[in-house]
């Protein structure tokens, strides 16, 4: 058993990777579903155990096949990626409970196992990107997760899902290839792919133009995956036409992992001084983040589709995260990391609400949600709870994020920036309240029976909605871990 314990880092990725083809053997939907949930909970257990091991600040280095660096690939787990691993696997575990949801209609009967296997592969990729300490490995895992996410998105009910998946594929591949170019240039200058070695050697060559170009390619490549404004065009279509379960999964994991990568490359590999002082990336990232906050929120206000509204809200929320990074302080990065976790909870809950609505109503047009407050009381209560979190009402996770972010801004004496953050969250009030009004105050057309979503959907929805309140009231765990993780990456490096 202790032997197995040592190999937890490898198992974190191998378990879902091996499980994906096993889905083909099981075939039966109920079996595969239960199996996937079981696997994702095993992943959750592993990542929780990993986080427990690194909480004291030490770093787990796992050498594959016993090959030390720079020859072998190593997995490297510090607080930052252990926390992201936990977030990703927890969200996956909760969302997978819901099953394919209405994507079932797009899948020929008896082929559900393909959905599960794509979902598991996607999880594998995301966990792999997060856990690995090898830059080329990052690219490979990123492509694994991206390819399977294109498949998942294309399962949407409308035919537009196909085009959404296709555009994402083009944008995503270009983004990943940019990252690949950047990695190539970095390799050219350092002769290693291992993150630790690379970070060390980059310090000596970072005056060269090659490293500068590498930084540009890497940042643009990751930003495409992260949907940083204005590279966000793929996101609204992808999230609004994908099956809501898939949107819930991707919105709460994929962009989060990309954000992690941005932190890892900017602060860990290239280094704070080079990225923020020599190159001054914050002069670009900060205005873009603020623009994202406003453009995303304002666009969300005008949407007529619930999922599309959530997608635009995600763009705004990503702005909060990148704003935290662009402050280039420990507090700012900690705020970004804690928002990564918090946003995963609340946006996951909201997309699951969309899944419940789709299940009963058949679509997510806001006009079709009239009077749902009476018809689906539990679902709509979850909408209110997680909506309040998006607004940032005290007692919810959104408030914790905002508190951390604004404190970080004020620490840099950026009162104007703090005001902008507040102003953009007022916009969130508008778009969340539109939903609540429609659900509770509009009279539905025609009589439709009062019937809530099935428990299989409601339970995960309420786990996430409840968590977004719970961690708002008892925020010490995510807040402490984020602060420690930011401190580690600032003081120890990588």
């Amino acid at each position, binding site marked *: 058993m202790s032997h197995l314990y040592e190999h937890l880092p490898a198992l974190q990725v191998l378990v879902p990777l091996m499980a994906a083809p096993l889905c083909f053997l099981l075939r039966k939907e109920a079996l595969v579903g239960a199996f996937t949930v079981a696997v994702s909970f095993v992943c959750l257990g592993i990542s929780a155990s990993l986080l427990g091991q690194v909480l004291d600040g030490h770093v787990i280095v796992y050498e594959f096949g016993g090959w030390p660096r720079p020859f072998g690939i190593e997995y490297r787990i510090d607080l930052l990626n252990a926390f992201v691993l936990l977030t990703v696997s927890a969200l996956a575990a909760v969302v997978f409970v819901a099953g394919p949801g209405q994507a079932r209609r797009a899948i020929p009967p008896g082929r559900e196992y393909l959905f599960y296997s794509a979902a598991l592969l996607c999880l594998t990729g995301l966990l792999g990107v997060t856990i690995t300490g090898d830059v080329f490995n990052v*690219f490979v895992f990123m492509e694994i997760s991206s390819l399977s996410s294109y498949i998942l998105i294309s399962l949407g009910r409308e035919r537009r899902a196909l085009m959404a998946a*296709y555009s994402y594929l083009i944008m995503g591949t270009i983004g990943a290839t940019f990252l690949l170019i950047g990695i190539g240039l970095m390799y050219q200058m350092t002769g290693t792919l291992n993150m630790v070695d690379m970070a060390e050697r980059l310090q000596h060559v970072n005056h060269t133009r090659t490293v500068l170009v590498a930084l540009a390619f890497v940042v643009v490549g990751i930003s495409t995956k992260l949907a940083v404004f204005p590279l966000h065009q793929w996101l609204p279509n992808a999230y609004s036409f994908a099956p809501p379960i898939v949107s819930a999964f991707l919105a709460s994991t994929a962009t989060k992992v990309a954000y992690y990568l941005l932190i890892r490359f900017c602060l860990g590999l290239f280094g704070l001084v080079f990225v923020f002082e020599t190159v001054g990336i914050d002069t670009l990232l900060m205005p873009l983040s603020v623009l994202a906050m406003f453009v995303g929120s304002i666009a969300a206000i005008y949407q007529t589709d619930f999922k599309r509204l959530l997608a635009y809200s995600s763009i705004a929320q990503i702005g909060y995260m990148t704003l935290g990074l662009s402050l280039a302080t420990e507090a700012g990065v900690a705020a970004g990391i804690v928002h990564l976790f918090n946003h995963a909870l609340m946006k996951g809950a909201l997309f699951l609400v969309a899944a419940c609505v789709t299940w009963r109503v058949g679509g997510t047009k806001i006009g079709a949600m009239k009077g749902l407050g009476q018809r689906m009381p539990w679902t709509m209560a979850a909408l209110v709870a997680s909506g309040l979190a998006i607004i940032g009402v005290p007692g919810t996770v959104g408030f914790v994020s905002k508190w951390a972010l604004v404190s970080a801004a004020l620490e840099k004496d950026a009162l104007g920036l703090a005001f902008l953050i507040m102003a953009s969250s007022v916009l969130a009030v508008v778009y969340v309240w539109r939903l609540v009004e429609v659900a509770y105050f509009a009279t539905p057309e025609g009589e439709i029976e009062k019937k809530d979503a099935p428990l299989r959907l409601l339970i995960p929805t309420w786990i996430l909605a409840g968590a977004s309140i719970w961690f708002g009231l008892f925020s010490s765990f995510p807040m402490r871990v984020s602060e420690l993780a930011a401190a580690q990456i600032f003081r120890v490096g990588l």
Partner: protein
Amino acid sequence: MTIERLVDHLATHWNYLAVIVLMMSGLYIAISRGNLVKKIMGMNVFQASVILMYVSMGKIHGGTAPILVEGVPDVVYTNPVPHVLMLTAIVVGVASTALGLALVVRTKEAYGTVEEDEIVALDRADDEREMATERAERRAAGAGA
């Protein structure tokens, strides 16, 4: 920079020139073409340029294939790592091409076309139809009330 130095530069770094030309033309095709299949072709050219970049940077002047031969000292080997990396990248590229093409096939089935502007027009027509029915319903509801 004088002409001679420029020529000199190009002559010694021609591989990068090729990479840049391929990269930019691939990117341009992927962005500007309306035909979904051509977009994928552009993407392939773009990816190919990266493969060329990696492979050419692993090449060492006078280097040979990195195969250890007993008793032959002082042999310069070409760096094998970029080649290996590119094997993976090629696999990834093939996979995304395959998936892209599969999506194109499904798109063709659903829309009857693979031209982006026609698909956009069809989508817009859908939207308008939907809005029209919605408006009609609202009017009917208003009349009923």
